[in-house]
């Protein structure tokens, strides 16, 4: 039986991966984008965001076709939509890892890669937050 772990997914990597494959990720949109790469494993992610009034109105991604990475990116995009920038910056790799069951520890670095792309997309906002403290 599949049990929902949050509002964004049912905890199944397979379902997130299949959703990622069904979606078209080629569209150019948004006013923020960030890229992160893992040279060792030849993986990369580009996160695109449409930010309006300090809220992520839309989020999409384009990633290397690794099942684990695509699943984490799909979940991250779902978590980002409608979320204030301040909250989006608070999402950590462990938040993705905890929501998707069955991923062995050797694949957890894919979550960190997705978060690194998010950080790159929101680098300006993160700097503003740091400067205002």
């Amino acid at each position, binding site marked *: 039986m599949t049990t929902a772990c949050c509002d964004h997914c049912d905890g199944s*990597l397979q379902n997130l991966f299949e959703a990622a494959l069904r979606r078209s990720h080629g569209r150019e949109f948004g006013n923020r984008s960030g890229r992160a790469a893992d040279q060792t494993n030849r993986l990369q992610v580009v996160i695109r965001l449409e930010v309006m009034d300090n809220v992520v109105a839309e989020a999409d991604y384009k990633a290397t076709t690794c*099942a*684990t990475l695509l*699943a984490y990116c799909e979940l991250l995009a779902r978590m980002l939509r409608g979320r204030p920038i301040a909250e989006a910056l608070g999402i950590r790799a462990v938040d993705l890892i905890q929501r998707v069951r069955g*991923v*062995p520890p050797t*694949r957890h670095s894919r979550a960190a890669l997705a978060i690194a792309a998010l950080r790159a997309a929101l680098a300006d906002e993160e700097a503003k937050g740091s400067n205002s403290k």
Partner: protein
Amino acid sequence: MKVAYIFSTAGHTVSYKLGRMILPQLEEDRHGAEVVGMFFFEDNTYLMRKGDPIGERLVKVAQEKNILLMCCDQCCYEREIADKLFDGVSIGCFPDLYQALGANPPDQVITL
């Protein structure tokens, strides 16, 4: 000669060709080729799930002979066993397999 096996077809593949031929021959040091890696697709991945008796023997001989054991990651996720494999058995796709075999490449890749 160094070989790598890819267990692609399901059915009688791992219980018969691996379990009754390749594995006993490796255990008896008379297989005739140096096996550097084995990659498992689809239902063949169940062999690498903790508790499988053939898998247990294979993991033991793989540790002794430094044989890479890897399962298709998508196949494991689909079957929800990616985190239930024997210690030392990794998951991955072709880039991971080629990278892992890069340091000790096979002369032949045999698909069963």
